[in-house]
């Protein structure tokens, strides 16, 4: 159906005419794409509005194409002058595989953001930031902001193995102390981030705050380490999301004795109140459905 789109309507998103207009403007265009690990990609995307408005801790909802699922991705970095944001994506399922099909120069069809409450940044004293696996990416902008706010920053990052570690340089550059752990010892120390965290807590001065982002099992482990010493610990939760603006409740998590929506009440919550078992359980909701689809139709 042909639309008579007048000149001032460059921002219209409907129909084929609109796609062409957007592409001309560079909206959501991928500026750069690189592989950080065998299954992780870093995308630098042009979106001036989000780049100018976002703050550490916030996320976007992304749809790579017409048929793709809407998925949440934390804003891992942003360049307000260039008007770009950085997204780090782990390629694990249909939606992320569709995203991985895009190359520099392509446009991501839909990006909504910034969403969620931004991290509480302040001068707390000593702040320890723990990033596990993909969690390294969302930790980075918070760590940088904490450093700029005048905190003594201790950075602990971990991954299963050396080839799964990324952004080591960025994390070193924004911290006063830096530690790296790998399960198999192929980089840094052999062990878990929680082993290092215990040591750091044991050494004076006791941290004033711990931020931990990574797989639920990691965030839960960090919460248990900091519970007894009573250190305020913030985690960023990653439940399944659909709309990201609080209209569907798909991302509901239990914090204390209350149900919260991670998209509008979070994504950060007090780690000592979070029901990680429920989060882990709900994250598995579509595992069977998706497995059957892959088996029936072949992997994408």
């Amino acid at each position: 159906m042909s639309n008579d789109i007048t000149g001032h309507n460059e921002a219209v998103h409907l129909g084929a005419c609109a796609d062409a207009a957007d592409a001309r403007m560079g909206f959501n265009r991928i500026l750069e794409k690189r592989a950080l690990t065998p299954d992780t990609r870093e995308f630098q995307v042009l979106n001036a509005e989000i780049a100018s408005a976002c703050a550490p801790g916030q996320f976007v909802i992304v749809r790579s194409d017409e048929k793709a699922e809407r998925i949440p991705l934390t804003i891992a970095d942003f360049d307000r002058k260039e008007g770009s944001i950085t997204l780090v994506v782990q390629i694990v399922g249909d939606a992320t595989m569709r995203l991985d099909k895009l190359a520099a120069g392509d446009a991501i069809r839909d990006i909504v953001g910034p969403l969620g409450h931004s991290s509480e940044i302040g001068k707390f004293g000593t702040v320890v930031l723990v990033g596990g696996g993909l969690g390294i990416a969302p930790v980075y902008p918070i760590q940088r902001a904490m450093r700029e706010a005048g905190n003594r920053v201790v950075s602990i990052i971990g991954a299963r193995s050396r080839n799964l570690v990324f952004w080591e340089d960025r994390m070193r550059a924004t911290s006063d102390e830096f530690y790296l752990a790998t399960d198999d010892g192929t980089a840094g120390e052999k062990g878990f981030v929680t082993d290092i965290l215990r040591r750091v807590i044991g050494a004076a001065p006791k941290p004033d705050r711990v931020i931990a982002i990574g797989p639920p099992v990691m965030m839960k482990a960090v919460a248990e380490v900091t519970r007894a010493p009573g250190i305020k610990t913030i985690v960023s939760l990653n439940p399944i999301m659909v709309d990201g603006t609080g209209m569907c409740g798909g991302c509901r998590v239990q914090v204390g004795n209350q149900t919260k929506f991670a998209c509008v009440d979070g994504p950060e919550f007090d780690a000592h109140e979070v029901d990680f078992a429920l989060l882990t359980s709900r994250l598995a909701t579509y595992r069977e459905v998706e497995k059957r689809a892959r088996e029936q139709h072949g992997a994408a």
Partner: protein
Amino acid sequence: MPQRPAAVRAKDFTEVPTGYTREMAQIESSRCIQCKKPLCVPSCPAEIDIPGFIKAIKDGDTPGAVRVLKKSNSLPAVCGRVCPQEVQCEMTCVIGRKGKPVSIGALERYAADTELAKGAAEKIEKALPTGKKVAVIGAGPAGLTVAADLARLGHAVTLFEALHAPGGVLVYGIPEFRLPKAIVQQECDYVAGLGVEVRLNTPVGQSVTGPGLLKAGYDAVFIGTGAGLPSFLGIPGENLKGVYSSNEFLTRVNLMKAYRFPEYGTPVLRGRNAVVVGGGNVAMDSARCALRLGEGRVTLVYRRTRKEMPARAEEIEHAIEEGVDVRELTAPLKVLGDENGWVKGMECLKMELGEPDASGRRRPVPLKGSEHVIEADQLVVAIGQGPNPLLTRNWPELKRDKHGLILVDENLTASVPGVFAGGDIVSGAATVILAIGNGKKAARSIDAWLKAGNRPAD
């Protein structure tokens, strides 16, 4: 109105009523006696010149019929399908006193569909540019109507929409088999074609804010953010896997086309034993979607009786014809789960009807000792949708009632100068046509306010 038979249609998402042929439209439009003082028009929330468009159909002039329709209603293909005509125009139709009323809705749909099928939209007359800018928040039926009416009056309109497609409930809520999304897109394209700047993927209340829009130079703001907050029962077990709010379930199925998974990437659970709690149109939509998705049973649980259900009679009938098992006078107590965190059933209580409550309907009273378990491997909670607070939580000057609905006067003016509101955000979850009616009224109020030289406070 011819319909696809229940046994066939309950297996797919193709539209249920098949629409009139030209012959049927000719016959039906001839039944209208073109009253000098029509009783149907005052019952139409959009004030459509009903005899006018019907006469055009009778004369074989469907473009003319649509021109008459679009003077009052920018979304005729939508309304022809989802309006509760049986309690509006068709209820007061004078012919209906002695026999069947004129099928006004079916005729509206016929005219609108015929013109949409032709493709190229007719050029609509617009007034000269006024130089005024209006921000419309929410591209649902209210927002689309305000945007279209104001654009025709010559104002520059920007329509903000949080989702990646316009339409609001028309795309995420009402299923494909009641309202095809291609039709909705065409209706939205018509609005954009009037010169409205549509900004998708832009929720207002985060980086773009209401007060921010006023500061940015918009001369007026209309809020049509709808009923985008899910209501849960607040009973134990509601966070188990397999429990959906109706908003999530319908959004996955309708907006994200999960019924075509994995061709479309968004999955939805297809229970063998789905239970839907509620009695409104959204509950019926949820039940009928579950029926089409699942391989088994769908049970609808409602705490009063069918008589008290707020859903359209037609939708309840369709649901029952298609095989939904309705359990009246039944209320949920708790959701039961298995050892893997999946819903496996719902413990319920039987109810009986007591004295009327605030809504005027008889209050459900629990029957002691009537606890029983209904098996379920999927639960959809469709007990109502409230106002989403994203826009309003950081706007204290915008007065709301205790439910979070925006307070307005009879001109749909809100408590902040230059701000207007309408649709579900004002009334609570209601119908598409009421939202459209609000949209028209708000557009008139905004136009008058702007032409009087008013400006929002700085």
